[in-house]
């Protein structure tokens, strides 16, 4: 997927003026936040789980190679195959190759953000495969030809009315004539359309929420059950997963699962939590004949050794998006690539390059609410600042902003000059504002005064005035 992250400021402005989007965002925001809070109120051990989860991930990351090799060994013992992909191109090539080997024509897909990251749909379609998204949200945006705007709710930006319009435009035939007035109407219609697709697909591709090293299983959580149908009905099941998804044991997986759904949707557990281990065995009634896992690196082993290592703990729950005031104001598409919100603003510059993505790291007030809600205790604001430090070193900051900051620092490093300027400037602004108490227009401060008055200084430097009063006191003593 082509990145448009550099255009974040312009895309954000468009998003802020889009009334349908704003209505959808307002609705989603309240829902996610309230439901998470209610779920955590029922979980007094949340903080302990958080500590345990962090330890599990840190331990795994410290022994990542060992656990990945163990995972591979176990997958192969259960009759499956692991494929290693260093970058998106290699991952797509492997997936397309597996589809060709299976003489596939139709591919059903479960939701996979790594699939978005590597541009899997484009690659499959370029190989003349018919790709059908089966997650309802993904299906909706596939019809709309849009990327996901949220990592767990890809069509959260769409209203019910917009979805009904899309379905009417794309679904033809007598059985699809009934008006789509309620959510169940929409779900029913999608179910009818997708049922035949599930049965007709040659290959099913899903993501994975976790990879279990000691059993060789991949874990998948969904609320629609579409993941299970995608995984078990076609002849071939391909799992696309990034390498940091591995955990040592099923026991470890359960700790993360207890945090995941609560943080994401406020559920204590998702409707479906499935573990896939190898292809169909002789005694099984159903299941795929082949089971493949494509492990995607795409810069993650490099992150393991740099300042962004902690980002590898992310379990993609979306809580940071749901609680971010910037995401809540502009939605996911403004971010211009696959991952939006705070986690996206950390990951995107790492994956598309800092020169293309650094503006995302800037687009945060560093309010820290993301870190406060993150079930994996990822210090997202510090990681955003890390990008800013790197951008400054690389000279990516706008020259005017850079010189203004440097100018400010140069003055702040000279206390006498600083004090003199504070005295003069504060008195000047105070005089200009007069009795009104605020300024409505200030040269070079349009970013502030476009929507806010500038409160006027009271006049004079506090520190200088305090020293003067002390001096007077001493003189009087």
């Amino acid at each position, binding site marked *: 997927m082509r990145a448009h992250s550099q255009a974040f*400021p312009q895309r*954000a*402005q468009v998003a*802020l003026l889009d009334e349908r989007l704003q209505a959808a965002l307002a609705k989603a925001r309240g829902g996610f936040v309230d439901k998470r809070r209610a779920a955590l109120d029922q979980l007094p051990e949340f903080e302990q789980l958080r500590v345990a989860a962090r330890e599990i991930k840190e331990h795994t990351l410290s022994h990542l190679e060992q656990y990945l090799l163990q995972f591979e060994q176990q997958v192969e013992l259960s009759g499956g195959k692991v494929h290693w992909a260093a970058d998106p191109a290699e991952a797509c090539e492997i997936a397309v190759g597996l589809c060709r080997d299976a003489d596939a024509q139709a591919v059903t897909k479960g939701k996979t953000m790594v699939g978005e990251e590597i541009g899997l749909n484009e690659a499959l379609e370029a190989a003349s495969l018919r790709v059908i998204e089966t997650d309802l949200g993904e299906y909706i945006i596939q019809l709309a030809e849009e990327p996901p705007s949220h990592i767990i709710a890809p069509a959260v930006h769409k209203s019910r009315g917009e979805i009904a319009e899309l379905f009417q435009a794309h679904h033809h035939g007598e059985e699809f004539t009934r008006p789509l007035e309620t959510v169940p109407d929409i779900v029913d219609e999608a179910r009818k359309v997708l049922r035949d697709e599930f049965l007709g697909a040659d290959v099913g591709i899903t993501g994975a929420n976790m990879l279990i090293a000691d059993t060789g299983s991949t874990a998948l959580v969904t609320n629609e059950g579409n993941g299970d149908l995608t995984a078990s009905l076609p002849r071939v099941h391909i799992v696309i997963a990034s390498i940091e998804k591995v955990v040592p044991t099923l026991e470890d997986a359960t700790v993360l699962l207890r945090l995941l759904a609560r943080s994401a949707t406020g559920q204590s557990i998702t409707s479906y939590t499935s573990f896939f281990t190898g292809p169909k065995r002789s005694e099984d009634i159903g299941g795929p004949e082949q089971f493949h896992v494509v492990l995607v690196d795409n810069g993650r082993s490099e992150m393991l050794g740099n300042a962004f290592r902690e980002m590898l703990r992310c379990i993609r729950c979306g809580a940071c998006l749901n609680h971010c*005031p910037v995401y809540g*104001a*502009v939605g996911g598409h403004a971010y211009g690539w696959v991952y939006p919100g705070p986690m996206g603003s950390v990951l995107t510059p790492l994956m598309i390059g800092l020169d293309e993505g650094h503006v995302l790291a*800037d*687009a*945060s*007030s*560093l*309010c*820290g*609410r993301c*870190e*406060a809600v993150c079930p994996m205790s990822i210090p997202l604001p510090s990681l955003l*600042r890390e990008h*800013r*430090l*790197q*951008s*400054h*070193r690389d000279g990516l900051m706008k020259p005017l*902003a850079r010189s203004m*900051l*440097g100018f*400010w*620092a140069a*003055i*702040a*490093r000279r*206390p006498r000059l*600083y*004090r003199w300027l*504070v005295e003069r*400037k*504060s008195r000047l602004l105070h005089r200009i504002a007069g*009795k*009104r*108490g*605020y300024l409505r227009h200030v040269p070079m401060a*349009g*970013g*502030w005064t*476009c*929507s*806010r*008055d*500038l*409160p*006027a*200084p*009271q006049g004079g*430097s*506090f*520190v*200088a*005035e*305090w020293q003067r009063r002390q001096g007077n006191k001493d003189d009087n003593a």
Partner: protein
Amino acid sequence: MRVALFATCLVDFMRPSVGFAAVQLLQQAGCEVDVPLAQTCCGQPAWNNGDAANARKLARQMIDVFEDYDHVIVPSGSCAGMLRHHYPTVLAEDSDYSERANQLAARCHELTGFLVDVLGVTSTGAVFDGRLTWHDSCSCLREMQVSRQPRQLLQALQGCELIELPDNEVCCGFGGTFCVKFPEISTRMVTDKVDAIVTTGASTVAAADLGCLMNIAGRISRRELPIRVFHVAELLAGMTDTPAIGEKS
């Protein structure tokens, strides 16, 4: 106890009354207060914009000025957070200053947190007659763990009715240079914040950070709403007979 007040550049430049209120509160609680003349800015704008070199220079300058006091008191959660939580990182690789940064960090406090937690103040004895709402700045709430302390002191004001602000965990959209780099997003955030303040029916809003307060006051002023904006130190010291932030005199 000999404490230094780090007034912060915003208070120094915009609103000396906050500094005088803070000195009064500290003296009233029994502290010997000094306001070192060589103080300027803590370097947070540099640090948050990725300018590590200038952040280091300003942090070293601050340590030189403030390290000899028992405590450093800051009428701002955000600048206190810079000293407490970021200086150790800023100067981690500076062999002369890293330990001194840790030492200073441990003795740096936000004003209301210091009054309540360290000095054990339960009431400042001031009067405030009216409906008041409290804005938790992000840095007070999350970085400094200061939310209970100012509420406790404000509730002790004679005549004060403290009303909780809905969505009090949400940023007001100031964010230092964020508000001018992304003015439309910031405007949206401060508009939501002011709307929330209006729903409380409070006639006054207070916070512990002048950055948030100027942002909120600026938006209130532009919308010409009859809500007064004060720094918490001014309320606690009973200094509300001066014009509020952005208010005509």
